[in-house]
């Protein structure tokens, strides 16, 4: 295993996993799912600043 990680600590990558990670880092393009999450997160931040409540989403 070339991944060493702990819950509250750093991540150590070596071997194939490090190579894979570097390929992701240098080649990955825009990430639509993450961009959508960021957009939702910004809306959430605005609601928090206004002290607004959130509704439970029973269909999540």
């Amino acid at each position, binding site marked *: 295993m070339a991944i060493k990680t702990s819950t509250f600590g750093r991540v150590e990558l070596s071997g194939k996993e*490090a190579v894979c990670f570097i390929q992701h880092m240098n080649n990955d393009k825009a*990430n639509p799912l993450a*961009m959508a999450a960021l957009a939702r997160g910004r809306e959430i*931040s605005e609601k928090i600043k206004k002290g607004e409540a959130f509704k439970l*989403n*029973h269909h999540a």
Partner: protein
Amino acid sequence: MPETDFYIRKLEQTDTVQNFKTGNSSFLPLKTFLQKQAKQFQQASIAQTYVAVTGDKNIIGYVTLICSEIDLQNGYEVADCSHANHYEFLPAIKIARLAVDTRYRGSGIGATLVAYSIALITDMIAENVGCRFVVTDAKSEAVSFYHKQGFISLEIENSQAVEHHLMFLDLMTLG
């Protein structure tokens, strides 16, 4: 599932944490952390916990963020910043804990907390300090959940046998 609204804010020292339920014993560390350690971590500025709370201050979910780093032991090259290649580590924030009370699972609280974390890290930390990645050690049953939030998992050998899966989000892919 109880009908209720909830709020998101930082964990407060006066919050009651004893009613939080995690169900399955494999989630017990998440309950123990909230009940016995989260406030100390916060007070010592080691980690910050954000909670989803009902109007009566009942915690129904939480996420804990901590500074982390990625050590690529074979060295690395950052294509868009060659100067960074001299540094041993890449800066990251880790989602160290994420849990939702068993009575409220499947109601979007976890996704809300992760989305908020991504925005917080992108707009407050990366924007003002510098941070390239969000990382987490996801339980096997949570891998699909994190994929839906845009996290990438490293393709590794024998991944089925691993209890936790390293997943990450490169903030440079957020446009």
